[in-house]
């Protein structure tokens, strides 16, 4: 990029010069512990500051677990802000805290302005207590607040300093665990993390490779033992963002829980205590289950009862260590993920089904580092089982799906079993094969024929097809429609219909559409997996030439389409050419067979493994782009 940002470069130089000249005396952090001029100079030495919107000069966090079971969290952050996008990120802060159980103390909220070289502190109107938007119609959760910390005096470039402490005013937690990543969205000069626990309490602390050893200090006066970690300078987090990227960067996982067993038992005890159906719930359940003849149908009705009667509240439920009783969630008409899961658990159990709460990893791959912590286990769900079925309930959508395809490739923790989280492995590799044989019908202008879908493991749509209404036809229509726009499935029959494997035949028809300006009929082939969680879709951003974050897929994948077109008198104008791209990531092939009045196109994409390092992205990208290239997806007839 050329000159446009040059003015910022000049301003930064001014910044460093201005600060360097006074580095010994000013400015320093509010607590006198950090020389900001020296941090700026270090930033300039370590990073291409001109190419950064912001640089974290200091990112410090401390966690204290007191002897009486209270948490004290402190944050101290000093940021060099250079551009308007950076102002948007750092100037005004929204700090969540539990006003019923915690206090928030702001130590400093100020701006070092380069233009007149002085600190401007936020006044009393710069701290505004607000209710979180997500909770503004959720009375039982209004103990939560978001304190707005509003910055005064911002003028580019400038240095923003923020420090605050959130302290439990009463013990109300059962334990504490967490994860600290040293890298952030911006380059960071110095990142510091400390964990203080009562002497002799033996927290579990595991640092990832490359994290320097902790400095351990014991303070008999406070009765605390503190483990402190310091790193820097650090590059920004890998991009694009992924749920798994935390594993790529230096981090510390920690927990006051002695083991997964201890964490899980306590959690399950709270869950079970809350997941009890009262008479009102039982009456509603009985009414809802009337006329349901199969176990799965009963499970779907239970899920629908939760979804129909309670509004999903999208807010981090870890703020509430204790779930509300199921009856209360039902009575209020809303619930966050934990509370809706509890309600569902109560109802499933009351309906005679087995229920196991599970935590599912945010991304793909393993999460267990030997630390009993749910920090990387983002999603709570229920495993539900009956005599004729098993499946999963998801509280966010309020839906029940048969099978375990949703878990494939993800870490799953079953609290109470004593086991750590384990990755749910797929059998071999997830397959999806779609075979279509279509014949051209000039009147009424249709491609008409049959298809076969074979799918396994992570690409198996069993959970979405199973049901007593038109679920299968709808799903097959979406899969076929993903490949050929406008496809309509008119009938189907299963060969194999199991949780991990589906083989079904179906009939379909597709309108031929209008001829183009050259009098040709176009068939543009899409992607049949789009409706199955879009495993190769936008999330991977194939147009991105480089990336620094690793790619984690749900599984090794093998996706194939075989399309036989009996075109009769239509002249073939364009067919993809046979081709093959093979590399370290897998293979993408196109095969073409031409016969009398018919053509067969076979397109196959095989990705040999589920995980690809960032350096392997070019090979993976080459396969994805080859697969999505119009020249492998277009058929023209005249």
């Amino acid at each position, binding site marked *: 990029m050329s000159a446009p940002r040059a003015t910022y470069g000049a301003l930064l130089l001014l910044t460093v010069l201005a600060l360097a000249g006074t580095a010994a005396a000013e400015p320093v952090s509010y607590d006198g512990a950090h020389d900001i001029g020296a941090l700026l100079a270090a930033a300039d030495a370590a990073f291409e500051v001109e190419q950064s919107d912001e640089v974290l000069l200091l990112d410090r966090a401390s966690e204290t677990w007191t002897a009486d079971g209270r948490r004290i969290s402190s944050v101290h952050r000093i940021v060099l802000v250079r551009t308007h*996008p950076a102002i948007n990120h750092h100037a005004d802060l929204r700090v969540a805290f539990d006003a019923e159980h915690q206090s928030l103390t702001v130590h400093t909220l100020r701006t070092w302005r380069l233009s007149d070289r002085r600190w401007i502190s936020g006044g009393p109107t710069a701290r*505004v207590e607000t209710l979180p938007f997500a909770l503004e119609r959720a009375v039982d959760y*209004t103990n939560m607040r978001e304190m707005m910390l509003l910055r005064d*005096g911002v003028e580019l470039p400038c240095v923003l300093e923020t420090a605050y402490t959130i302290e439990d005013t009463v013990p109300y937690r059962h334990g504490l665990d967490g994860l600290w990543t040293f890298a952030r969205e911006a380059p960071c000069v110095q990142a510091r993390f400390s964990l203080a626990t009562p002497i002799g309490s033996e927290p579990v602390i595991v640092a990832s490779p490359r994290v320097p050893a902790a400095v351990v200090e014991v303070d008999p006066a406070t009765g605390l033992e503190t483990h402190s970690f310091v790193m820097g300078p650090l590059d920004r987090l890998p991009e694009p963002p992924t749920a798994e990227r935390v594993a790529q960067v230096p981090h510390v996982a920690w927990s006051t829980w002695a083991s997964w067993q201890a964490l899980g038992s306590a959690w399950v005890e709270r869950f079970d205590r809350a997941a009890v159906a009262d008479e009102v719930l039982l009456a509603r359940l009985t009414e809802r289950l009337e006329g349901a003849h199969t176990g799965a149908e009963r499970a779907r009705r239970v899920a629908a009862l939760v979804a129909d009667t309670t509004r999903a509240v999208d807010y981090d439920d870890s703020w509430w260590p204790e779930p509300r009783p199921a009856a209360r969630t039902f009575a209020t*008409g809303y619930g966050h993920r934990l509370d809706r899961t509890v309600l569902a658990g109560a109802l499933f159990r009351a309906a005679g089904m087995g229920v196991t709460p599970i935590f599912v990893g945010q991304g793909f791959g393993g999460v267990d580092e030997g630390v009993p912590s749910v920090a990387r286990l983002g999603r709570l769900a229920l495993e539900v089982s009956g005599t004729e079925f098993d499946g999963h309930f998801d509280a966010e959508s309020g839906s029940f799906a048969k099978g375990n395809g949703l878990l494939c490739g993800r870490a799953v923790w079953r609290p109470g079993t004593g086991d750590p989280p384990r990755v749910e492995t797929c059998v071999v590799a997830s397959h999806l094969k779609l075979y279509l044989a279509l014949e051209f019908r000039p009147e009424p202008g249709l491609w008409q024929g049959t298809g076969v879908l074979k799918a396994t493991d992570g690409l198996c749509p069993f959970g979405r097809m199973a049901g007593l209404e038109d679920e299968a036809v709808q799903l097959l229509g979406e899969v076929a429609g993903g490949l050929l726009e406008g496809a309509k499935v008119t009938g189907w029959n299963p060969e194999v219909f199991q949780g991990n494997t589906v083989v079904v035949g179906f009939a379909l028809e597709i309108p031929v559409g209008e001829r183009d300006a050259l009098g040709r009929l176009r068939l543009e082939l899409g992607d049949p997996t789009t409706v199955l969680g879009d495993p190769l879709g936008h999330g991977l951003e194939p147009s991105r*030439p480089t990336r620094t974050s690793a790619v984690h897929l749900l599984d090794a994948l093998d996706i194939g389409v075989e399309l036989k077109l009996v075109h009769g008198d239509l002249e073939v*104008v364009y067919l993809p050419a046979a081709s093959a791209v093979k590399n370290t990531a897998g293979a993408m092939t196109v095969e073409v067979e031409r016969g009398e009045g018919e053509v067969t196109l076979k397109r196959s994409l095989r990705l040999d493994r589920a995980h690809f390092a960032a350096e392997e992205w070019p090979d993976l990208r080459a396969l994805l782009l080859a697969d999505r290239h119009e020249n492998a997806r277009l058929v023209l007839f005249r």
Partner: protein
Amino acid sequence: MSGLGSRHVLALVLTAGLGALAMAQGPEVQLPPGDSPPPTAADRVAAAGESDDYPDYGHVVVLDRAVNHVDEKGVSRVESEVLYKTLTEEGCRALSVLQWGYEPQSSAVEVEDVTVIRDGKTIPVPVEAVLDLPAAQDMIYWGNRTKLLQMPRLEVGDGIDVRSTRRGYSYALLDQTQSDDERFIPPMPGEYFDIVLFSGPVPILEKRYELRLPAAKQLHSQVYNGALYASTSFTEDENVYAWWAFDLEAERHEERQAEASDRVTKVVLATVESWEAKSRWFFSVNDGQFGSSPEIDRKVVDILAAAGVADGDDAAKAEALVHWVAQNIRYSGQTMGKGEGFTLHPGTMIFEQRSGVCKDIAGMLVTMMRAAGIATNPAMTMAGSRIEEVPADQFNHCVVAREAGDEWVMYDPTWVPFNNDIWSKLETEQHYLVGSAEGEPLRRIAYSPPMESPLRIRHQATLGVDGSLEGTIRFEGRGAMDSRLRRIVASTPIREIDERLGTMLASMCERVEVQSVRHRAADDFSGDMWIEVAYRAPQLALAVDGGLELHPPMMAVLLSDGLLFRAGATKWDEERTSDVFLYYTQLLDVEETIRLPAGRAATVVPASDEVDETYAYFKGQAEAAAGRLIIRTRAEVRRRQIPPEGYAGLRKAVEEARSWGRAVIRVEGEGGEG
């Protein structure tokens, strides 16, 4: 819908106000045959219909009735009753918590009575359980509050009858130490205004609004966007005005809609004499806020010197100052206590804080322009909506007016960050009112034709024999399109700018490789914005039947990016009932010159139909030239707000643009071979 006719009869039996309900509670009277007693809330709920009558809604408002008592000082006390009926579980969820918002320094709300009506019986809900909490806030942090009431578990078919009283004003802040009623006195003491919309997110079966004014007060009022029943009466002390309607449909959501106040039936009313009086008031309450300080004076000198206009005329100085304020006073509003909401914060305060809402940002500019010796006043406008003739306070935005002889030149520092205009082209045709000692009439910003907001794209490229396309695309924007292009740069982190442009071009070809990106600095206002991208798109053209085929390359980009072509990138429904509101007009002028491989020529050079409608225009044309292919595309969006009767024309132009995006251009060897 069942039962509506009978509901009408029931409703019409009621004359005005809450008195009728009181009558219903008196001794039983023998009614003549055919007459019905006034309906109770339970009667209304029973007659309100079921979910089959309103298949798209979880609940309905059975009755929304408000009686507004305004006293001599202009203090308002609104007694209201809202009666809901749940139709589905969704409705029960939606009404599980009731909410009332208020601004504690200018208004108060009391929840008087809440009952659930189930199977004809009433179940009282204890209003002592109402919680009074800080409200959720974003961008504007004035300490607003919210009251919440958890309802008992609702059942389908329940009625919920809610009675509350609201006192005060929508935005007056007077000293907290004053007596309770005094803090509710509106900013123009003794004057009252209101804008009452007769619509909502769910159907309303009956809505009544009654205004009781002291007999000495006069009222302007008018009904817009439809018809209402109305009555006027008086007592010895009061004039009583009422408006009501039945069976109001819910607001219907459509893409790119105008604000509700432009669409739904409403009453606009005001006691203030005229716009001129409003102008004088606005001037008088704010004129003390613009005092400068030595720091501000020095900054003004520095800004003018840096822009090279220290000796320039007022227009040049004002332009330098509006850009400085727009770039340096960010939108984030803290409260200043007394006067908040209608008084501009002092310039000295905002200069220190470097943040505020529109009125504070405008106040900063007035302060600086006056410090530079430029005659400047604050002004009010309604961003994104129409202002009706009734001089009610229909403003949502504050701006700046520079006196230039007999005219005012308008500046909007809030809407021109990263915008080369002094007044955003997204605010044309807007009404505004300048505050002045003499009093000003309501004025309107002129219409801005598409040529004032052009996006010119010049695409120079070379087509390789393998179908690869390599070249440079230069985007140039002026007016609204200048701001759109600047936004692309200004909102993108530095390191992501190549990727941002790559993503934009990926809709043309996913394999695109961005080789370089150049652009004017987003905060360089010395000229119109431009962005230039050099790229390579491997195998963009497809080898078909001995030739190469491609579509007009830029159309894929334009039709998928709302910043570049808002009308084209919007998914439009077939039918339209409300105005389309696009904020700005636009001219799209694209010329793509593609050099062809030696010995090749464009043999299929399509042209689109020319669509020339009242509100929109489109034409695409490919042309074969010596060794080159030239593709010209022109589109115009001719009004920022398009009525439903103009929708078909707009859609026709957009559909033609989409069709043009799919047009096939074919390149072959001179002899017809590839």
